[in-house]
């Protein structure tokens, strides 16, 4: 079974802090994705990566950056957290058939 893990289930940070969310997959997948999910807005793509050190912007990249130094690990960085970045953050990796496998999510609260 594919396993995607995320570093934290719940996180509380203060406005202006730099926040790191980490995601690890164990299936040697090349493509990995970061989404945020908000009530009424569904899943929105922030960034994705198709290889080590390669990245593409999604629909809402503003205020975020990513890092992929190793194939199995994809990090999402909030450079200066703001209250409107309070959300559920979901990481996914892509299988051979283009299906995506999701991690359990990180519920981030910025106060």
């Amino acid at each position, binding site marked *: 079974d594919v396993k995607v893990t995320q570093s934290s289930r719940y996180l509380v940070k203060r406005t202006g802090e730099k926040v790191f969310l980490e995601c690890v997959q164990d299936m040697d997948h090349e493509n990995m994705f970061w989404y945020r999910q908000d009530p*009424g807005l569904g*899943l929105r793509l922030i960034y*994705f990566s198709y290889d080590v050190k390669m990245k593409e912007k999604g629909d809402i990249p503003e205020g975020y950056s990513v890092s992929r130094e190793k194939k199995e690990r994809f990090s999402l960085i909030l450079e200066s957290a703001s209250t409107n970045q309070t959300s559920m953050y979901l990481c996914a990796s892509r299988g051979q058939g*283009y299906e*995506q496998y999701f991690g359990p*999510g990180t519920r981030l609260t910025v106060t």
Partner: protein
Amino acid sequence: EDQVTQSPEALRLQEGESSSLNCSYTVSGLRGLFWYRQDPGKGPEFLFTLYSAGEEKEKERLKATLTKKESFLHITAPKPEDSATYLCAPIDRGSTLGRLYFGRGTQLTVWP
């Protein structure tokens, strides 16, 4: 413009009352369509992939079907444990990087 529309937004069923969820899409060429189940506070769980019109996939009380413009998730004799949000996502044939466009989901509640 949304590429994926799911209906209804919410559905309440009594246990044993069968129904269908709809996913309509407007991608130019379909490579595949995926269905997911999401429980509150958790990540989406992959259910099915459908690749071509006429294809069907089944898993327990769920059956997914695909036409050229829409997909249906049929739920037969549902149980309370089927309560969840169901998401669909088509992938365009031109997508080489595997980006999916998710619908907003149908929130299903099955009461005893």
